[in-house]
């Protein structure tokens, strides 16, 4: 039966994706950037939309929520997955509303008055069946995919507005977005980049190699030297793992130090973050990865110590000057607004 065949194929794909996510971030799984994860998640959601059995928007949302919960649970530190699920849910809501004929705007604006009078937008509103809904949703998801494809380029395009000749730029660790951003600027301007190595994983080394290959003057410093060097720096440009709802960051360990040093010297701190990194979460989490650490050689000591190797820092919004996303630059105080544009408030908790 082709139907059941399709379904087993779908579940197989979901399982494969889940196990990849679980192993992600370590050496054993396939190493991917968050952009790739976002694309894969969206592609998988498109497949679910196309292949799962559903008759109304409500069913589909339920399916996507169910799978979404599993996906986010598989790798809680990878917020991109949850963000893409919320985006798709939002798309379904919009398409449903459009099919029903009501305008998007009225649905989107949740005024206090409306909240009080309507008694909440409940699920039964999504029970109506529309033949064209599936095609429309898939169409909209395709648009989202195209948007995702272009994010890094869109951000990099803005580079010339922010980087000027003979500036000294500092960055930390390795971010693909920042890498593309700097390389784009390097085509027109000459500037100097200082990379903090970001021990113990030292992704900064990779970053520096890649930048110097592109012909950018690059210096690697240890994390401890960040404050000392900061006085010479004109701008700090960093990437992030997640942009939190309050405009704060969850970024690679060491970023907080960097941000504080930048604040002390009043150096502008610019964060390159595509929109898909925007997460409605505010919760701070704690992730430790001990897998490849450098204490392994000293065997006897190891038995007597606890080794903690946190992966992420929380950076409060006050320390951030500007976000550069694929749709332009925003202040941290504006993030809440973007959040409500991107995600439906009911989807914040999956």
């Amino acid at each position: 039966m082709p139907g059941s065949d399709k379904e087993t194929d779908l579940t197989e794909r979901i399982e494969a994706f889940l196990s990849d996510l679980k192993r992600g971030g370590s050496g054993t799984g396939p190493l991917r950037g968050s952009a790739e994860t976002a694309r894969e998640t969206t592609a998988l959601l498109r497949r679910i939309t196309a292949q799962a059995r559903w008759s109304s928007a409500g069913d589909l949302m339920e399916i996507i929520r169910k799978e979404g919960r599993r996906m986010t649970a598989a790798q809680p530190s990878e917020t991109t997955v949850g963000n893409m699920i919320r985006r798709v849910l939002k798309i379904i809501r919009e398409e449903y509303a459009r099919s029903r004929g009501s305008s998007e705007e009225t649905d989107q604006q949740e005024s206090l008055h409306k909240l009080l009078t309507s008694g909440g937008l409940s699920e039964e509103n999504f029970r109506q069946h529309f033949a064209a809904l599936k095609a429309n949703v898939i169409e909209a998801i395709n648009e989202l995919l195209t948007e995702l494809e272009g994010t890094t380029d869109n951000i990099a395009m803005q580079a010339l507005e922010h980087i000027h000749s003979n500036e000294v730029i500092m960055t930390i660790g390795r971010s693909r977005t920042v890498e593309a951003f700097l390389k784009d600027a390097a085509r027109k301007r000459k500037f100097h980049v200082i990379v903090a190595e970001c021990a113990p994983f030292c992704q900064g080394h990779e970053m520096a190699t890649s930048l110097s290959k592109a012909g950018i003057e690059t210096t690697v410093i240890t994390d401890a030297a960040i404050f000392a060097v900061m006085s010479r720096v004109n701008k700090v440009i960093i990437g992030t793992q997640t942009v939190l709802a309050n405009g704060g960051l969850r970024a690679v360990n060491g970023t907080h130090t960097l941000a504080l040093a930048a604040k002390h010297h009043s150096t502008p701190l610019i964060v390159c973050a595509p929109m898909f990194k925007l997460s409605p979460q505010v919760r701070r989490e704690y992730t430790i990865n001990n897998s490849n650490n450098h204490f392994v050689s000293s065997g006897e000591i190891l038995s007597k110590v606890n080794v903690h190797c946190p992966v992420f820092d929380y950076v409060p919004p006050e320390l951030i000057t500007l976000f550069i996303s694929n749709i332009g630059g925003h202040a941290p105080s504006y993030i809440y607004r973007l959040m409500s544009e991107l995600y439906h408030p009911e989807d914040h908790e999956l």
Partner: protein
Amino acid sequence: MASKGGKQSRSDRKGAGEQEEEEQPLQAVLVADSFNRRFFPVTKDQPRALLPLGNVSMIDHTLEFLTSTGVQETFVFCCWMASKIKEHLLNSKWCRPTSPNTVHIITSELYRSLGDVLRDVDAKSLVRSDFVLVYGDVVSNFDVSQALQEHRHRRKMEKNISVMTMIFKESSPGHRSRCEEDDVIVAVDSKSQRVLHYQKTHGLKKLQFPMNIFHSGSDEFEIRHDLLDCHISICSPQVAELFTDNFDYQTRNDFVRGILVNEEILGNQIHMHVTKDGYGARVSNLLMYDSVSSDFVRRWVYPLTPESNFADHKGRSCTYSRHNVYRGSGVSLGHGSQMEENVLIGCDTSIGANCHISNSVIGNNCTIGDNVILDHAYIWNNVHIASNVTISQSVVCDKTVIKEDVKLNKQCVLAFNVVIGPNISLPEGTVVSMHHPEEEEDDDDEFLSDDAEVGHSKDKNKQKGAYRVSEVGQEGKGYIWKASSLDDTEDEELSQCLWGLVLNPDPESESEASEPDGPDDPVIPSPEMDDVKVFQMEVLGTLQRGLEENIGCDNLVLEINSLKYAYNITLKEVMQILTRVVLDYPFQQQGSQLTTSQYVALLLPLLKKWAPVFKNYVKRAQDHLDCLCAFEEHFLEQESHWAAMVKVLMNMYQLEILEEEIILRWFSQGATTDKSRALRKNQGLQKFIQWLEEAEESSEEDGE
């Protein structure tokens, strides 16, 4: 069709290493049996592969490792309590149709060693290409793909020379996850990573290396002691064949030793792969259990962490917070209780007030009372612990009940269903089980006892009478397994082995308790006399068969030769034994009351028949003498048949087995005892010698 597409893309993503020219899925052989009794009173109720480590069965850890490293087909071999393992696997995520790793379960009660398993692999021809070989109690997060790539590359460069790549982890001596009894020293060719010498140190201070390993052409060697054997190896299909060819290989050690010793003959080589990061260890005893568990909780095995719920149990997820504290769902913690650090608590466990818990793992559905102190405690599922209990570095198995005011000192083990207390303190290293230690010896042979057997033994328990109050407390149930009486040394060994605390092991007790080791093991006594006797019997059998089935002399020689190597017999001994056997043959067949003439009549045709066999061995002058000595010995024992002696000798002379010169020399020199002098005075013999001397003289004259 569609599903194939899915697999394809998966393996594509796995990296270039795997699918160079062959699209063969990577296979693995998982041995879910330890073939020893290290965990004994515990494994009597549950096989080792199913013991929980961080609240997940060990076999799930191993399967997760295999799956994440890209294995697509796994053969699980079970023996002890195979049905339980099978049931567990069928209910796990590995047997779901969506699992990327197809698991086949193969059970047999006949497996007694790793060798048996691999021979079965060969017999059923399960593996098609290189495979990963692991035990069911290995915990690891390695990515073997690099090692696999190296292995395949080597095999492509030199056709099928390298048969195995062993994976080692770099870790200096003193590392927690290094197991004393698994300490190895490895000599390796640093360029090709070829293993030249592999030896377990067993706490030895002096080690010897055969010189020839340093003459093998390469100019750089490393002798390393900073390696931890992860018990993960990448094997070629030939490994299974080699196990079949060499039926005496029992363990991987035997195999490695055999390959290294016979390298020149067979041309097979073993290589190794050393990794610096990553984690890999085998839970071979409780001390290792302790250290691997704490490493797991301390996230050294990332991404295999307690909160990742990789075994995919429904509702078994747990949350992770600072100081490595993990809590399952539905955990309740009483007022004033502290979870200090490195604590993992399973689902629906409730903990009373004012407890101190550190470095411990607590299973699901446990109840813990007030004022309990747990340090390095491993508490499995459904355990009931009353108030005011102190436990340090101990293992408490499923469904155990610990009553009030009990203190478990270090390295106690409470096996399944035991009840302890109240008001008792168990001394260090106590092992308590519901199985009586003596009953253990009763069904020693029936190692594979099934459930019926267990029920049966329970009845026996009752017969054996009540539990000793002094040992397990007033309401306690269970028997102490520790050697309280010194005469029972075997038990002492057992409890030590459980924790693997053999720090300065005298080699005897060590290897006896572990698996039967290889040929150079000091324990196995090989008294030479026995071998010689067995060899004699074998030769007799061979000749007998040769006579019955009319086998040609060439083949007889061949068989005797192979026997000679099998029992390690010198050529001189072969000669003497052969002579003795042949001369003795008529007596063996017809009984000892033969008359002399009958004896001669029987023997002469035999001698004629087997003359080529003799000629094959009796070549140099010394050989002749040896042969004659045996001849003499034989007749010294058979005084009544001295008359036959001369005829036999004559016959041997005529058949050109013996030369006259040597016979003369023997006659003149050989006499050392009175009896042999008497033998030489035998009339017939003297006549024969005289005749020989004359014949010689005449031939000399002829020559002149």
